[in-house]
């Protein structure tokens, strides 16, 4: 069951195709990674999902129905990459105000904010102003205001930037808990190690188009290069015959090999066993998402070139 379905979404600006025919769906209760280099169109995509922009073409289904920004935005919590809070406003009042804009009653907002503040050990901040907070602190506040109204869909754009590991973990745990309780989370970031850790499903966007879609596991298998690392007690001195692999490198007591076309991992193991090599480990080396990301995005210009106006208009 998908909470969000994006179908053939397009948004063209005067000088570029920011989002060019993107479709994907996000399952209820899942953590979904939206990846892409800077300027790939992620923010534009998110802005359409949050109802800030209207798509030029295509449609969005939210919870099975056509997305209607006026009613549905209260079910969405959005934390933009650039943090925004009123600097001169007191923290408690600010949280209440933002919750009220999401349709919560004042008393309701108050109790929920207090719960969250206790959870994040922020109780003493209530009467402080945002300008007195450190970057990490305002990050936590922003997170609280994003999830306070228990939205069905939470969109987090780089939620961990500027946070120390302790606070990162605190927020990561809350993200898991929210997903367990049925919230769906879209997670947009460049930090691939976090994506691997957190996300169930990812899509990769580049130059306004989707270039990758799948679960983290599937994607990794899709991009595997048949690399294996073999650990030895002792590096074998001489190897005879025709090995079913190509040597990629050695490292300490390890070989890193690429299996040749037509062979299986078992053939490699057999080969070494026949040579009498003392194997202590044999692992498949899956590419990291980071490698995949770089591989896919590399070669395309880092910043998008602006098209001449005539092309679009």
């Amino acid at each position, binding site marked *: 069951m998908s909470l969000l379905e994006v179908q053939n979404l397009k948004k063209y600006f005067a000088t570029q195709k920011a989002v060019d025919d993107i479709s994907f769906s996000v399952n209820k209760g899942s953590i979904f990674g939206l990846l892409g280099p800077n300027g790939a169109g992620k923010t534009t995509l998110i802005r359409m999902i*949050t*109802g800030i922009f209207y798509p030029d073409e295509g449609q969005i289904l939210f919870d099975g129905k056509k997305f209607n920004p006026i009613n549905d935005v209260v079910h*969405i919590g*959005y934390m*933009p990459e*650039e943090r*925004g*809070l009123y600097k001169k406003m007191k923290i408690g009042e600010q949280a209440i105000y933002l919750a009220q*804009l*999401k349709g919560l009653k004042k008393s309701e907002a108050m109790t929920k904010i207090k719960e969250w503040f206790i959870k994040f050990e922020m109780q003493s901040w209530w009467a402080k102003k945002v300008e007195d907070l450190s970057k990490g602190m305002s990050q936590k506040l922003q997170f609280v205001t994003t999830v306070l109204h228990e939205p069905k869909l939470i969109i987090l754009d780089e939620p961990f930037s500027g946070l120390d590991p302790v606070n990162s973990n605190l927020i990561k745990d809350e993200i898991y808990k929210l997903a367990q309780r049925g919230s769906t989370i879209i997670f947009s970031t460049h930090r691939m190690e976090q994506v691997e850790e957190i996300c169930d499903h990812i899509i990769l966007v580049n130059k306004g188009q989707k270039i990758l879609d799948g679960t983290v596991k599937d994607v990794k298998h899709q991009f595997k290069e048949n690399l294996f690392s073999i650990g030895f007690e002792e590096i074998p001195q001489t190897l005879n015959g025709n090995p079913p692999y190509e040597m990629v490198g050695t490292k300490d007591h390890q070989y890193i090999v690429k299996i040749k076309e037509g062979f299986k991992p078992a053939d490699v193991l057999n080969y070494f066993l026949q040579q009498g090599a003392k194997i202590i480990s044999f692992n498949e080396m899956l590419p990291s998402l980071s490698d995949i990301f770089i591989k896919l995005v590399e070669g395309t210009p880092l910043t998008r070139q602006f098209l001449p106006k005539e092309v679009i208009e």
Partner: protein
Amino acid sequence: MNKIWLVMKREYVTRVRNKTFLLSTILLPLVMVLFITGAVFFAARPEGKKKIAVIDKKGSLENFLKSDTSKMIFDFNSGADTSNFSQKGFDGLLYAVDSTGQHFLLKTQKAASNETMDRLRDRLSNAYVSGKLLEKNITINQIDSINKASSSYYTVDNTDEKNKNVNSSVNAGIGFASGIIIYITMFIFGAMVMRGVMEEKTTRIAEVIISSVKPFQLMMGKILGIGAVGLTQMLLWIILIFLISTAAFTFLPTDVLEQVKHIQSNPGMMTSNPGQYSAAAKGIANLTNLNWPLILGCFLFYFLGGYLFYSSLFAAVGSVVNEDPQEAQSLMFPIIMPIIFAFIIMSSNIDKPDSPVMVWASIIPFTSPIVMMGRLASSPPFWQIAVSMLSLVAGFILTTWLAGKIYRTGILLYGKKPSWKEMIKWIRRS
């Protein structure tokens, strides 16, 4: 609607709680009333009597230049001259500078006040005329009776009942003052809206808010909230000025107050016999005779209307610029121009409130809030006020609509400032 209300409430509360708001609300009327009462007080203070020595060898003045013991004493036998009149206790020396004794010069130690000069000029020309008449064999008695008759020769009666006792310079003053106040507040509150929008854009909170509120709601909430702040301030100012000036009246010299009472109980006296009252008393009586409910009502309407007309434009400017205040300045220029223009029209035509320029400028919404206030005290026809108000309402609906379109796109757009062409495109689109 509920969201506009929430935004509005936040804008209002955060601003009204601010110390600068409190300070400016209390200090401004205090300073203003102190200034005005100070001016009235000094103007009302009776000037000491002046002693003037006269050297009149031909005796052409002695018979006609009568001393008035309370105001001015002429001494024809003082023996004073240009070098020693002040040592002898005279404020001035009047002497003939040519041999025929036709041309006189007044020499004073200190600069003479306007009031003294006016009085002296009056006396001298009377004396001259009387002297000449005497040469034509008209007796002093006849001259006296002519002089007496001349003072009750005419009275002024304005056909307009409402304005019967209102002095035109006071009208102009009130109109001018309210025009200036609207002019200044339009800048203050317009700039406040613009800064607020810029703040939301540069701190990037706009994106958070706009994911729960429509851009137009955010803009309207801000405009209405700050407008409510302005209205609160105006009302507090009016109340405070009223209270303080009532209190300040008690410090005025009692004879001025009595004269005011006298003028108020005898309408018509002032125009027929203006010399009887001091300038201060006339000023105060004029102020109390104005149609204050109309003026205040219109003042609040034009303040709000003008504010709404321009503030959405200021909001649009705030939405398209980034941190750089210089960008804002170049975009603000076309908005500020008509405001300044309105002020120039009002101030240069304040004495001709019914001239075509004033009539048109008081109807066209770009200039009407300022110019109509300048005309108001002289009772423009009712239909003109009505047309002016209606066109102002239509005007601000139009500017808000236009500005909303620019704002909606501008608030989320970072980087280069858009060109006019692009902004017009935003307005045309959808």
